[in-house]
């Protein structure tokens, strides 16, 4: 890690004279820039949302650890996406990856936006993809392993997928449509979490010898609720900001209403289903339902009407509840529902484009239910499957390598005592009496 730093400092001194000339390229649009920056701030704030949701859903003894992971993955994404990521994602029209613009050197932003404004928006997205994984692998993953993983996903894996879809790569050439990242961000994060949590194995005590899941409750529902509100707010940057400008206010407004209404429907659907299935309306599942709606509307938010957004949200809420259940049945332990929320609904949102997209609203072509046939649906399916294969394959290698290098999982003793003490030598709630029997 230290050498990485010296590398920075060295490059820095070396490139100093070059950098100063990069400023003031081309003409930029002030309103568009302002919009993208504000959207970037909101997307950045989603880190706080993820932090609170994930911290609230784990036990008190692991809260500081997950917050530390959340904070650090964004920091690492900021640096990694600066040095490598942006270049890989936007450095030219190669089918597979970008090839120039390391350290943002010798590269421009899109028309009308300053490079640095576009970068911060993209970097915030990159941080989001990285942070999803923290939750799925919570309560047992080593901190050093997490740092290494963060570097790889934010500097390499995510940018490559981003390049395919948003950076001029092969999927964007096929007219694969993912407006704000159901696939780019959420499928990537969700499936990285899935493979990670499978490799890590379940938490001690999560499954009984007979395979039935045990009750391990999160330690702070207020944090979870706060986190979901923050994420919902952040999504108003995530989706509407993905217009990358304010040239079409109608479009921005449509994206906004769809985002909001899909989240609301997801929460209601999730609540009702959980109520029916388990007898009581479960707060954590309801909140997961809202997030599921948000994830699902992320790809199609620009190209559907609010009525369709409601439908997409309802199905997302339902899929999320079943997703949580399926994982329990498969004995995959995903403490915060990262896979059910981001993985499953990332797929659903991407596919929804092929079902409900309307060319008149800007879709590449009409979806299946609007008479456009199976073409777009096929492209969407191809895209999402490719991304899943790439993520699962590459992350499997990454996690295995990290495991061999430093180990993925903490010791049993540390897990029982809590990662806060084990990894950071501290308690999250110093002085509070906490009753724990796991």
């Amino acid at each position: 890690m230290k050498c990485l730093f010296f590398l920075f400092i060295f490059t820095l001194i070396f490139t100093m004279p070059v950098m100063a000339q990069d400023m003031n390229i081309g003409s930029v649009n002030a309103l568009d820039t302002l919009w993208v920056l504000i959207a970037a701030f909101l997307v950045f704030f989603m880190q706080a949302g993820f932090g609170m949701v994930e911290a609230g859903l784990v036990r008190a003894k692991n809260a500081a650890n997950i917050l530390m992971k959340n904070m650090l993955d964004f920091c690492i994404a900021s640096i990694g996406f600066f040095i490598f990521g942006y270049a890989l994602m936007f450095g030219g029209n190669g089918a597979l990856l970008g090839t120039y613009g390391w350290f943002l050197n010798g590269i421009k932003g899109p028309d009308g936006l300053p490079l640095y404004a576009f970068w911060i928006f993209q970097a915030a997205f990159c941080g989001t993809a990285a942070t999803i994984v923290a939750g799925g692998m919570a309560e047992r993953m080593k901190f050093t392993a997490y740092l290494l993983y963060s570097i790889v996903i934010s500097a390499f894996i995510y940018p490559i997928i981003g390049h395919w879809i948003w950076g001029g790569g092969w999927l964007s050439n096929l007219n694969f449509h993912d407006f704000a990242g159901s696939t780019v961000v959420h499928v990537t994060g969700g499936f990285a979490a899935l493979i990670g949590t499978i490799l890590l194995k379940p938490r001690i005590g999560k499954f009984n010898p007979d395979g039935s899941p045990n009750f391990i409750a999160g330690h702070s529902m207020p944090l979870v609720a706060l986190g979901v509100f923050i994420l919902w707010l952040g999504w108003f940057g995530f989706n509407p900001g993905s217009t990358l400008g304010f040239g079409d206010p109608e479009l921005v407004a449509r994206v906004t209403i769809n985002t909001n209404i899909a989240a609301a429907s997801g929460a209601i659907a999730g609540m009702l289903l959980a109520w029916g299935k388990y007898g009581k309306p479960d707060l954590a599942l309801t909140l997961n339902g809202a997030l599921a709606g948000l994830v699902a509307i992320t790809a199609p938010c620009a190209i559907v009407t609010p009525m369709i957004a409601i439908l997409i949200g309802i199905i997302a809420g339902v899929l999320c509840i079943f997703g949580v259940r399926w994982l329990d049945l498969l004995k995959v332990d995903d403490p915060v529902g990262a896979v059910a929320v981001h993985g499953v609904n990332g797929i659903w949102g991407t596919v929804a484009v092929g079902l409900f997209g309307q060319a008149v609203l800007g879709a590449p072509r009409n979806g299946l239910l609007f008479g456009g046939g199976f073409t777009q649906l096929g492209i969407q399916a191809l895209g999402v499957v490719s991304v899943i294969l790439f993520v699962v394959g590459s992350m499997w290698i990454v996690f295995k390598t990290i495991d061999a290098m430093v180990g993925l999982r903490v010791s049993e003793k540390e897990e029982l005592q809590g990662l806060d003490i084990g990894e950071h030598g501290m308690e999250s709630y110093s002085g509070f009496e906490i009753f724990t029997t796991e």
Partner: protein
Amino acid sequence: MKLIVAIIQPHQLPAVKKSLYEKQVYKITVSNVLGCGEEKGYQESFRGVQHEVDLLKKIRLEIAVNEDFVEPTIAAVVDGARTNTVGDGKIFIMDLQECIRIRTGERGNRAIG
């Protein structure tokens, strides 16, 4: 001297304190415990996983008294804590061999109150 330990329902604590005061028992030590007894537990569920909670919130009182206060204290606790429903609690009585007031070093009966 005796040490009286009572396990009661949390929401009866104000009533128990009141009836103890009426019997001139002013010194008590209170703590939070979880109890498992005849009272039925309840179901919790988190993210779809059910869980039977059988350790219920209770309050534990510790009262050291001289012999002549034992029965009044018991009566007071019963009086304050009794609602005639399962879960009302128990009183345990143990022999207390010595009692020391830290501030003064006094021992025995004089130290207890």
